[in-house]
């Protein structure tokens, strides 16, 4: 009996295996790309970073372009604010502490329920609630109270006058009737969002792709691109291969890979200007990097032009501070050209004398410090190595080491770090976090632990006043201070390159931040894309 039953089981297993194998082999040919890539009203693009969540309450889309949602305001191609869910730009009170937003009427969420002031109040109050796990809530630090005046008017009361506040209101508005009834941190809204935006999420296959369909009732008009897919492909080479094979219509690519797509093959390359900087932190607690003379010398010893050419294939600009040289906020005349002689003069004058091994010494202290970069980040590695080789010529030794953030964090107080960042919407966003002494060593803000009284005063002055001329003057002063007393050694601003099919006309890019996930690229405004005949 046992023999028979075992044989039976074995036979059944074999038959099952064969049947499955046959089924796997004899599948109908669906055609590569499922026929979506290439058709008129659909677009498939490849991006490198996946959002952790799709809930605005947890930080999704806080800088706009969230596809699924709208903010009260939004940015146009030139990064100017314009009304979205608000009916007009806000009116600001005399003391700069009260912002009143009239709301657009007749807007509906994609489930058909109307959008009202309650949703705005709900969104902001939930984000500011300490039980909400939103890592970006400090960006709304200025908000004291959000109140509904009537169904179509919302009033923000600030703790202190904060000129860039309106820039923060691009953050997406969540529906109270859905998100309000569930756990904000783990509820289904975090993966199945419902918003007022131009697109409706149809599927999110984590680690693979996000698919959207056009919202036919969008208040701004139904988008021409009806089906939109964002494939998440972390590896640059695989992304390029899939773009070449026709699986993707467009993708973000590093400069060397973008160059392999010559124009004229039905593809165009778009270069986005950015605020995305790479710099070296100069911790003030380190006896070498804490010395003002060393910081000044490092600032002119690095060859930024060579980095742009060698590391970025020309797709970038030398950086002298967080503000890029082509921004209207840049203080003209603060550029510091590469000047090794000047670096040596500064160090000689400050008493740093060259030792036998070529490294300078002052009072028994060798001019040597450790420079960390994030392991696996090739761009940062190349910047770190170029920095080390440049400053070595001036007699300063930077010992380059790699590690994860967990390994780097305990050493940030004493060791230099190859850091990156950049948010274009307002000069306050980068400069206050990087330079204000009250944030020295606070999380990853002001990693140099820089303290400069004039800079502190000007930073506060610039965020309190609404007058553009006064703000410009304050930021000019800050940037001039950084020439004399550098807080970091800024190296480059990095352009982001996108290769995309030419089936659409007049594609644009915004000025992009450091984080360039699904909100950036030519598809920042996919809802406005027009087919090229």
């Amino acid at each position: 009996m046992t023999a028979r039953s075992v044989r039976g089981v074995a036979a059944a297993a074999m038959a099952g295996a064969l049947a499955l194998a046959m089924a796997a082999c004899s599948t109908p040919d669906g055609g590569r790309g499922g026929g979506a890539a290439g058709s008129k009203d659909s677009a498939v693009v490849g991006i490198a970073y996946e959002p952790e969540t799709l809930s605005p309450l947890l930080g999704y889309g806080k800088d706009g372009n969230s596809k699924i949602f709208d903010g009260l305001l939004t940015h146009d191609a030139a990064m100017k604010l314009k009304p979205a869910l608000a009916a007009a730009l806000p009116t600001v009170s005399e003391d700069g502490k009260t912002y009143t937003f009239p709301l657009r009427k007749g807007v509906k969420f994609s489930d058909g329920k109307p959008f009202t002031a309650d949703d705005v109040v709900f969104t902001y109050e939930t984000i500011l609630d300490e039980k909400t796990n939103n890592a970006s809530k400090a960006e709304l630090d200025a908000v004291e109270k959000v109140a509904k005046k009537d169904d179509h008017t919302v009033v923000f009361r600030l703790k202190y006058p904060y000129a860039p506040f309106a820039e923060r209101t691009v953050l997406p508005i969540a529906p109270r009737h859905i998100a309000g009834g569930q756990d904000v941190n783990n509820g289904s809204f975090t993966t199945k969002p419902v918003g007022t935006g131009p697109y409706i999420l149809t599927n999110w296959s984590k680690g693979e792709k996000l698919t959207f369909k056009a919202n036919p009732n969008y208040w701004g008009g139904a988008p021409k691109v009806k089906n939109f897919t964002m494939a998440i492909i972390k590896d640059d080479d695989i992304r390029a291969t899939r773009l070449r094979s026709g699986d993707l219509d467009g993708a973000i690519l590093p400069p060397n890979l973008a160059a392999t797509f010559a124009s004229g093959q039905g593809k165009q390359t778009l270069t986005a200007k950015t605020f995305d900087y790479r710099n070296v932190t100069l911790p003030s607690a380190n006896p070498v990097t804490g010395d003002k003379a060393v910081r000044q010398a490092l600032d002119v010893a690095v060859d930024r032009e060579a980095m742009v050419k060698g590391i970025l294939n020309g797709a970038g600009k030398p950086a002298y501070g967080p503000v890029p040289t082509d921004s209207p906020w840049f203080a003209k005349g603060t550029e510091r050209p590469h000047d090794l002689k000047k670096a040596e003069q500064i160090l000689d004058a400050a008493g740093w004398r060259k030792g036998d091994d070529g490294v300078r010494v002052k009072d028994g202290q060798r001019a040597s410090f450790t420079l960390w970069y994030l392991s696996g980040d090739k761009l940062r590695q190349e910047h770190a190595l170029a920095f080390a080789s440049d400053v070595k010529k001036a007699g300063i030794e930077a010992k380059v080491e790699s590690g994860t953030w967990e390994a780097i964090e305990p050493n940030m107080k004493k060791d230099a770090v190859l850091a990156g960042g950049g948010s274009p919407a307002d000069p306050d966003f980068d400069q206050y976090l990087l330079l204000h002494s009250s944030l020295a060593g606070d999380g990853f803000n002001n990693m140099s632990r820089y303290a400069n009284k004039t800079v502190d005063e000007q930073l506060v002055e610039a965020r309190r006043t609404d007058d553009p001329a006064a703000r410009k003057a304050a930021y000019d002063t800050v940037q001039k201070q950084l020439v004399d007393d550098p807080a970091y050694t800024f190296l480059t601003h990095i352009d982001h390159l996108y290769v995309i099919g030419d089936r659409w006309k007049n594609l644009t890019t915004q000025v992009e931040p450091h984080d360039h996930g699904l909100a950036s690229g030519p598809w920042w405004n996919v809802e406005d894309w027009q087919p090229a005949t």
Partner: protein
Amino acid sequence: MSALTSLPWGPMARMTGRRVLLAVPVLLAVTLGVFAIAAASPFDPVRAYAGTAGLTASQENLDQLRHNLGVDQPLLARWWHWLTGALTGDLGDSATLRAPVSQVIGERIGWSALLCALAFVIAIAVGTLLGVLAARRRGGLLDRAVTSVAYALEAAPPFWLGLLAVWLFALKLGVLPAGGLTDTGSEVATAGQIARHVVLPALVLAVSQLPWFVLYVRQGVGDALAEDPVRGARARGLRERTVLLQHALRSGLLPVLTLIGSRVPELITGALLVETVFSWPGIAAATVEAATSVDFPLLAALTVLATAAVLAGNLLSDLLYGLADPRVAFDG
């Protein structure tokens, strides 16, 4: 029907019962171990949770997150909290995926099970077939070819095989998709698409498991061919086919039954690598994420699942062994 009723249900049930009782302390120890290892790891759950936003967050904000995620509590308290929750059916929430653990696992386990089952069945079937063919003429051309390829494959890591398969079938030949569950541009998951996408990962996983079955079957059947019952059968003038399949294969398959149980852990680790290479939306991707971002509840639930699979695999092979060989009693 008579075969079913005549099975030794009683002893089999008792053995299963004993194993289930034994599994309780094992699972407790394993979950505690996972919490301890995760707590000792250099990864910071708060950093992992905050992602890039953490780089501009204020310290106060990060501290609040640490408190909200419950990772500021001591190790034992966290484990106890998770355990009592799990016993009442609440597996907790996955911080990294912003969703309840039960939902995360529920969405993914089917895809992993499909992949593993397919690969396992292919490995057993093809392995048995090749093993028998090789054993029939030991030292013959087929035997030498199959054996040397099996040894080579045994040494090849699954992720390497996976990359090779992607390169050959997806990039060079362009006949099969390189990864994912469905085509990039497609919105719905149709059976045809899934079938096309599962071929490469299932084959790679099967090939990585195959050598063990080939070599075991070859050895078992080869040895059995030299044993008395087979010689007796041959002497009685039975057909070679009958001798090979009815006599030699039956006794030669016994070690393979043990192998089925002991290969389950290997299958799971293999699946981990294969799912990663092919961006297959199964448990593996979640496991990697849970481990690197120190997502305690998700990590613990997945470990329990893997441990349970291993224990069940062992139980299954012991039961099958007892059934196939009457000399072995159900007393393990």
